[in-house]
């Protein structure tokens, strides 16, 4: 057990624990705050995986924008501060079984794959992942089309969201 592995296990426990709080806590603002803990844990995982750019982007996009939007939406769709009534469906135990089965199925499927417990080579120091990413996003024989399509997707989302939510008559 190396220090890195212990650190990974702690991060993983924090992620899973806070994710459980997201789906079970009664107070929706608390659920959004727990989601932020989960997302921050995922950012730490990206840092462990040497994906610095994605780690920072995770914090910028998820915590800085998506979580804020969630908190705004929770505040916008409530008549009072307290959450009344049950927060889970009646058949929640059935759903828990479905989720457990999904996890079991995924686990079984993954462990039968021969690359399951692969280890990675050491990360070359001075490897410019951000520059590589930029060139991959721009070069015509790589991902230039997804790059432009993402822009169109965001445009469509903006137009659609603005139209749906605030169509004044």
């Amino acid at each position, binding site marked *: 057990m190396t220090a890195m592995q212990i650190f990974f296990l702690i991060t993983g426990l924090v992620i899973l624990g806070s994710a459980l709080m997201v789906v079970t806590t009664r107070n929706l*603002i608390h659920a959004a*705050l727990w989601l*932020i803990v989960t997302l921050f844990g995922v950012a730490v995982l990206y840092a462990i995986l040497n994906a*610095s*750019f994605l780690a*920072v*982007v995770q*914090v*910028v996009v998820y*915590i*800085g*924008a998506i*979580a*804020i939007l969630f*908190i705004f939406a929770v505040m916008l769709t409530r008549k009072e501060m307290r959450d009344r009534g049950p927060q889970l469906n009646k058949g929640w135990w059935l759903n828990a079984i479905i989720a457990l089965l999904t996890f079991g199925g995924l686990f079984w499927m993954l462990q039968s794959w021969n690359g399951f417990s692969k280890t990675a080579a050491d990360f070359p120091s001075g490897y*410019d992942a*951000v520059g590589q990413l930029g060139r991959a996003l721009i070069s015509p024989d790589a991902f230039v089309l997804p790059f432009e399509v993402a822009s169109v997707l965001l445009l469509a989302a903006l137009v659609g969201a603005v139209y749906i939510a605030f169509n004044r008559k």
Partner: protein
Amino acid sequence: MNFWFDPVNFIAHWLNSLLVGWGMAEWLAALIIQLVGVVVLISLMMVFDVFLVWVERKVVARFQDRLGPNRVGPFGIFQPFADIIKLIIKEDITPDGADKVVYNLAPILSLMSVLLLWAIVPLAPVIFGVDLNVGALYIVAAGSIGTLSIIMAAWSSNNKYALIGAFRQVAVLISFEIPMIATMLIPTILAGSMGMNEIVRGQQTVWYVVLAPLAALTFLIAAIAELGRSPFDLNEAESEIVAGFHIEYTGMKFGLFYAGELLHAFTFGGFWAVLFLGGYHFFGLENLGPLVAVVILFAKAMFGYWVIMWIRYTVMRMRIDHMLAFNWKFLTPVAFVVLMLTALMNTLLRNTSSVVYIAGMLLTNVLLCWIIVEILRGFSRAERERTEGVASATVAAHH
């Protein structure tokens, strides 16, 4: 290895040999050295923060034709220590109905988000926390933790004014974040890297404020809005919502918000210096030694901080609709146009001689500035004619 030219490594080596000489494991010694470095840097910033309280009070006093603190010690320099003692021994009130955990966490996160920024500031060529290759986005990430702390503070303190103040503040923060990110892209393009060290190194010959003056100006305006300072201090419009999101905070918790705000202003002064004013470069003076470079950077950061204070104590508060319209209808489009033009001109001119390159970039900015001013003039003329037309129509109706 010389103390004058590489103080950090000199001390680190000395500490390392000392600790290993005591029979300590190599990795533990390395960890302790890193820890000492972090603690020293953060303590330095906290001590500086105390000094900033005095600077801010003294400067605002001069702007308002007063003397400012002048009783405790020479020039009142010990006033902040009296303030700190007062804050510490003050009773800490938690209002009924507050969400205790979130309520206590918010001021801590607020100060932490500012302290985190100092991890990437290159104080000198050899004195810096860490040379992160995603520095520019890291600034935004730390800022988003600050935004979060505002929402947490307001929601958990169970107060109407706090919530209204936080909504306003967050709306302004997230709106002005867009031009700020867009202008941070420009030094990134010019230096070819997001790392702060690389950006400062790229300004050895010419500061980016010469190559992209419009971007520097836009960044300053967006930074002032990010700080929630006048003319963008709607979050604490005293006559409307008392003190904004930290209305229910007393004692040391309020002190943390206050300390965070002051240090944030100074930090953005520092980033303005790093991104546009050449960082620790000052016409070759930084070659005298890293400690001189640190002094240069702090002087430039202080200049940025002073400009922010100057604007704060001179300009009146804006209305929120004007503020958001100013951002979305003016600052954001301008920032993106500057970004596109800079990227284009940089690519077109990069193979020419440096004189042509600098002149070309500067001329592009001047031309763009002229076009923007012309558009604004046309717009305001139309607006004036419209309002005058309305006014004369009402006058006519009255007769």
